[in-house]
């Protein structure tokens, strides 16, 4: 059984009209699903309590967010990553962020108590938020709170992050935790925010060999991405055998994304989502929680997340977008939106250095697997 999790309060997580992390993307998605004849009938979460946040965040940081939210002056806000261009402070920020965490935590709860086999949380995925600082549009780390909840109930969790940016917050929070396997595929930190996620970041102490990073070259295309994904993810899950899988399904690895340089297509995303479900079935009895994440291109993001939703629910994928939806959002945003669900083929002109990029990714993937072998199977 699939359960959708969503609350209209998610739309209040809004850094302002000029900011890329806009709730419009979510509105477009819900409207699109509605027009496609699959209106979302979600369970609504409660905002999380302070205690829930303190399972992964420092008290000092949570207090700073609360103070900033009330409009009180925060001593040294930059220390907490607040009031920066990426994370401007807005009224209601604390509450809106707590709703997002609440949704992901509700998803974990539903999985743990067998109320659902698959959960799609239509929000969240705030993977950059750190123990004591906001970062990269993320205030509270909903993923980490949900994972911590499952750990505290004795479960093991695999975390898969396909956002184009490294899942640094989740990795750091569980860096020495043996019961959490993290796998992040992203554009290399040598080129892209947040700068981390190199192959050699394998975890520490008992967590070593359980934090995996696949840093891909800029302008990596779908074939190369999917090759790396299939070389690493199933092997890691087969070894780790988690009780639950949590997937951060950011849509910003798409070719049209304005903040990054990977070149996935909607077709590639559909394949990725199918494989995630396949692996969940194979390695953790189908128990999987999907969240949204980054993704800043209005032309592609609603289509990618609609594909996620339709794939999870086993609904057929319409080839055309509803004309009324398209017209409404073209007028509202003043942009031209595509008529088809999937990208045209080819979606973009040929990329120079295509072979070099694919070779580089292949060697990165091999280097990662080679360095994991001693931790997974003893010295070889």
């Amino acid at each position: 059984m699939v359960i959708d999790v969503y609350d209209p309060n998610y739309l209040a997580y809004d850094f302002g009209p000029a900011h890329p992390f806009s709730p419009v993307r979510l509105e477009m998605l819900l409207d699109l699903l509605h027009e496609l004849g699959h209106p979302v009938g979600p369970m609504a979460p409660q905002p999380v309590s302070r205690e829930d946040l303190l399972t992964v965040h420092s008290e000092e940081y949570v207090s700073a967010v609360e103070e900033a939210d009330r409009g009180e002056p925060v001593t040294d806000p930059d220390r907490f990553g607040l009031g920066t261009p990426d994370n401007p402070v807005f009224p209601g920020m604390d509450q809106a962020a707590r709703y997002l965490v609440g949704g992901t935590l509700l998803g974990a709860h539903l999985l743990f108590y067998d109320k659902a086999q698959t959960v799609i949380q239509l929000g969240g995925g705030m993977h950059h938020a750190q123990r004591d600082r906001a970062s990269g549009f993320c205030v509270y780390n909903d993923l980490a709170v949900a994972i911590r909840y499952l750990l505290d109930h004795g479960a093991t969790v695999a975390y898969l992050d396909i956002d184009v940016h490294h899942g640094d917050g989740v990795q750091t929070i569980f860096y020495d935790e043996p019961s959490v396997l993290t796998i992040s595929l992203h554009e290399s930190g040598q080129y892209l925010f947040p700068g981390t996620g190199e192959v050699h970041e394998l975890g520490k102490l008992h967590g070593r060999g359980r934090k995996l990073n696949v840093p891909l070259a800029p302008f990596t295309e779908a074939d190369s991405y999917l090759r790396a994904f299939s070389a690493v993810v199933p092997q890691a899950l087969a070894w780790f055998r988690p009780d639950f899988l949590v997937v951060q399904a950011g849509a910003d690895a798409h070719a049209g994304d304005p903040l990054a340089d990977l070149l996935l297509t909607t077709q590639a995303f559909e394949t990725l989502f199918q494989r995630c479900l396949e692996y969940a079935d194979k390695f953790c009895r189908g128990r999987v929680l999907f969240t949204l994440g980054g993704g800043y291109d209005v032309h592609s993001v609603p289509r990618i997340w609609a594909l996620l939703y339709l794939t999870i629910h086993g609904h057929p994928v319409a080839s055309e977008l509803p004309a009324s939806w398209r017209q409404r959002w073209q007028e509202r945003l003043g942009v031209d939106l595509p008529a088809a669900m999937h990208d045209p083929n080819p979606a973009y002109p040929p990329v120079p250095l295509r072979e070099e990029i694919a070779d580089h990714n292949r060697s990165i993937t091999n280097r990662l697997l080679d360095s994991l072998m001693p931790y997974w199977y003893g010295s070889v």
Partner: protein
Amino acid sequence: MLVRDIMKSPVVVAECDATLASTYSLMREHGIRHVPVVRQGKLVGVVTDRDLRLATSALSTKPFSPKARIEKVMSQPAQTADPLDPVEEAARTMRQLKIGCLPVMSGADLVGIVTGLDLLDALLRLTGVSMPSGRLEVGLPDHPGELARLAAFLAAKQVNIRSILSHADADDRIRLVLRVGTIELKVIAQELRTQGFEVLWPALSPW
């Protein structure tokens, strides 16, 4: 960054009358390759794992016995550094003399040791990512005020600069690599281009 910021202390030392065998054990026990040698508390040389291996090698025409005293095989006099030397000065000395460590002396006292690995750590600190940030590479003409123009632009955007590296390229252009605290770097790169800056990364789309 000064030598005192990167040196290791306290220092594991050997007496000059210690044997090769006991010094070898000392290195194994502490996982180190460089041992300053002292006589009555005064630095008289340095012995490295390489010194020991060469001295005792079966390939040597006259190998030393494991019971020989280390003062017979140590390098002397030891090259040293001052705690207040800049790290680049220590790097230059070690590179020029092709040596792997510098005992650090404050007056007559041995207060620390710097090895090649400590310099690599320093390099990582200078170039590495300690805060979430994005990479911006800009080519600037080698004129006064160019960096200030770039910094002023970033300051106006409220974007924090986490680190700056620079080097001159073949065309006498200064290449600056900045780590800046924002996820929205492509947007900023575009604005920099319209302001006439030569942005080398993030790249324009390849088409």
